[in-house]
Each structure stands twice: as structure tokens, then as C-alpha cells.
């Protein structure tokens, strides 16, 4: 069982590493979106500090939406996904493996670099820590929820944007609690409450999302 999970994760990690440049794109996108705002809004530090949590979180959300498209699409196009449906392994496990690899490649780097970006917006030490934590809890949830959308839209002529349409409404709670936790910390109210809620969402999606995504995959391949 674990052997299978490991194989899937390793396979996807190796594939990602073979395209090292691809690996950087999501990160790069994240950094760029965050850096564009000062350009578009203007350089006043007080405004920037106020909008910082929101901007970082929206950028994280968009970056993970962007990456989602590639979660199943390549496997679908070359037929390896079809073969996964035909293996004697529980599909939800394979899906979980793919999501895990996907998060390691796209979500984790983004989490790690976020304090640096927060610093640019003048956030304080404690706030940065909460930002890091909220992203650490939130981005896996985004990947998990997004996987459902990615599975549903597989092979459809809607493409990536349809995924966003389906998934973004579902991820809004993550966004609200995530940015809420940082804002609450910044304004001295303590962000623990929000972080607990984020954790709850993560656990829930960890249990439900692979199953839903597996069902969606079976439907999409019919």
C-alpha cells in the first residue's frame, strides 16, 4: 500500500525534476503577482502593509489554480491516467499520491518564499510567522480541493479557466481564513482561531477530496 503511494509520489517528483524550469514557473508566477501590486497601486508603505496579507494570499490561490491544470492533464493526454484507472490499486490512494507530489513541487516552495515577500511589504516578525503557518496549512487544502475541479474538467473544452470557475468558489473559505489569520495577527487580535479553522478545512479535505477526485476521474474517463 505504502509502496504504491511512494511509487506514485516518486514518479511525479522525478517528472517534475526533469522539467526543472517548469518547477520554477509557479514560484515565479507567485513572486511576480505579489511584486506587481506595488507597481500598479503605488509605493506608499502604509497602504501596502494593509493589503499585504490579502495580496499574498490571493497570489498563492491564483498560483495554485494555475498549477492545477497540469495535475492530471498530462497523464490524461498520454493515456497513463487511463492505465491508472485499470490498476488493481485503490484510485483514491493514487490520486492522493499525485496531489502530494504536486503540492511538494508547487505549494511548498511558495510557502517557503512567502516570508521574504511579506518582508517586502513591511510585515513584522510575528505576522510573517503566521503568514508562513497559514500558507502551510492552506496550500495543501487548496491543492486537494483543486484536484476535484481538475478531475472534473479533464479533457473538456473548457480548459484551465473552467477549473478556476469551478474551484475558486470552493476555495474562498480557505482564502478568508488564511488572510484573516494574518490580518488578525497584524492588528494584534491573534490569529489562532483562524488557523484552527484552516486546520479543520485541511483535515476535512484530506479525507474527502481524494475520494471525490477519484470519482470525478472515473466519470471523466468514461
Amino acid at each position: 500500500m505504502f509502496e504504491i503511494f511512494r511509487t506514485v509520489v516518486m514518479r511525479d517528483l522525478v517528472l517534475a525534476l526533469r522539467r526543472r524550469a517548469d518547477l520554477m514557473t509557479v514560484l515565479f508566477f507567485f513572486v511576480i503577482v505579489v511584486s506587481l501590486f506595488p507597481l500598479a497601486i503605488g509605493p506608499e508603505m502604509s497602504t501596502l502593509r494593509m493589503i499585504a496579507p490579502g495580496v499574498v494570499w490571493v497570489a498563492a490561490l491564483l498560483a495554485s489554480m494555475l498549477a492545477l491544470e497540469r495535475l492530471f492533464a498530462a497523464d490524461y493526454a498520454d493515456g497513463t491516467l487511463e492505465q491508472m484507472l485499470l490498476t488493481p490499486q485503490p484510485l483514491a490512494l493514487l490520486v492522493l499520491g499525485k496531489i502530494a507530489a504536486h503540492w511538494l513541487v508547487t505549494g511548498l516552495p511558495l510557502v517557503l518564499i512567502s516570508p521574504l515577500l511579506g518582508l517586502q511589504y513591511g510585515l513584522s516578525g510575528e505576522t510573517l510567522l503566521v503568514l508562513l503557518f497559514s500558507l502551510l496549512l492552506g496550500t495543501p487544502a487548496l491543492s486537494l480541493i483543486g484536484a476535484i475541479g481538475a478531475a472534473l474538467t479533464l479533457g473538456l473544452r473548457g480548459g484551465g479557466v473552467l477549473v478556476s470557475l469551478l474551484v475558486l468558489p470552493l476555495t474562498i473559505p480557505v482564502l478568508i481564513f488564511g488572510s484573516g489569520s494574518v490580518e488578525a495577527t497584524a492588528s494584534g487580535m491573534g490569529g489562532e482561531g483562524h488557523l484552527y479553522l484552516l486546520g479543520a478545512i485541511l483535515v476535512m479535505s484530506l479525507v474527502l477530496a481524494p475520494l471525490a477526485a477519484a470519482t470525478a476521474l472515473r466519470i471523466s474517463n468514461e
Partner: protein
Amino acid sequence: MSSRLVNWFKFSSPSTFYPLAGKIGFWSMVVTVVLLAVGLYMSFFVAPTDYKQGEGYRIIYVHVPAAWMSMFLYVLMAGWAALGLVFNTRLSAMMASALAPTGASMAFIALWTGAFWGKPMWGAWWVWDARLTSELILLFLYLGFIALQSAIDDPRRADRACAVLAIVGVVNVPIIYYSVIWWNTLHQGATIQIRGESSMDPLMLTTLLIMTLAFWAYCIAVAMARVRSIILERERETTWVGEMVKEGRA
């Protein structure tokens, strides 16, 4: 008990449901017309003027029923979709897809009337308030459902995919709904309490209830009409539709 069960299964087949839906739809339409006539008359001429908000408040008689229906219909739609996914009954899936456009239009009406109302009340068409935002998200959930449905050619596959989406979305609805608690909100809270005093004038309340019932009847009528056309389209290969077309009943 068992005879009732049989009855239900009988109506879960499109061919027997089709004429039934016609009857339900017709009578709902009649009820809608009557209730709307009464309700609109009362809302414009009978209900008293609000002492705080003047005449403009009368939009509430459209706004609130639409908002309620939009939320209720989503849950109903998800329920039908889930039934269809689990038991593989064709009719439930058709019901779900018949409800989606109605729900979306209700959400749209609630947003539109709310925005219209907001301009005189708050001095802005739109504020980023929890209630308003959650209604907007609800509209997006409906639109996502419809977009997914129209993006998949094979209707059976579309039904099943949409069912997954609707079910996942329904998990999200209470979360969005309770986010009100973390927000300070400009929008009115619940005025109609099931227990305890209602802060509303009884006449206003009656009018509102009549309008709500009218909206109910309308939604049922429209959903039935739509499900009938969906049944016809999807079952066009079957003999019963063929016979009906031959007899000129469709």
C-alpha cells in the same frame, strides 16, 4: 408501506413522470399567477410604508423571497444530483439540471434587487459584505454547475460530473454562510424569527409570506417545464416519446 414504495419507483421513470410534471407545472403556474397578483397588489398598495426606509423598502417583497429561494434551490439541486449519482436514476439527474438555471436566476434577482436597494440605503451599489459576497459566490456555484453541464457533450457523463460538483459545493454552503460571524456586516440580519418576537409589522409579514409562496410556485412551475423539455430531449430515441410525437401530444 410497500405499495407507496412501488408508487415512488413508478414516478421515478421519465415516461410516467412526464405527464405528472405537466399537471404539476400547470397548476403551479395557476397558483403563481394568483399569488403574484395578490402579493404584488398588497406589496404596492396595502402594506404600510416603512417609517425608516420610506417607499423604497417595497423591493423587499421581491428581494427576500428570491434570496431565500436561491439558497434553498441549491441544496435541493445537490440533493437530487446526489440521488442520481448514487442510485443511477435518470430522473433525479434531470431534476438537478432543471433546477440549476432557476436557482441561478433567483440568485441573480436577489443580487440585482439588492444592488438596486443598496444605492438609496447605503449610497453604494455594492459593498463587500459577508451576506452579499456569499450570495455572489452562490451565483458562481450555480454558474459553475451550468458551465460544466454545457461543457460535456454526453449527458450522462455531464450529470455525474455535475453531481460531484454540486455535492462538494453544498459542503461549502454552510461555511460561507457562517462566515458572517467573522465579519462585521452592513446587511440586515434575520428579522423573521421562528421563535420569539418578529420585529415586523404583521401586514408586511403577510405580504412577504404571500410573495414567498408565489416564488415557490413559480420555481416549481418553471422547473417542471424545464424538466419536461429535458426528458423529451434525452428520451427522444425511446418508443414512448415516438408514440407521443406521432399522436401529436408533445
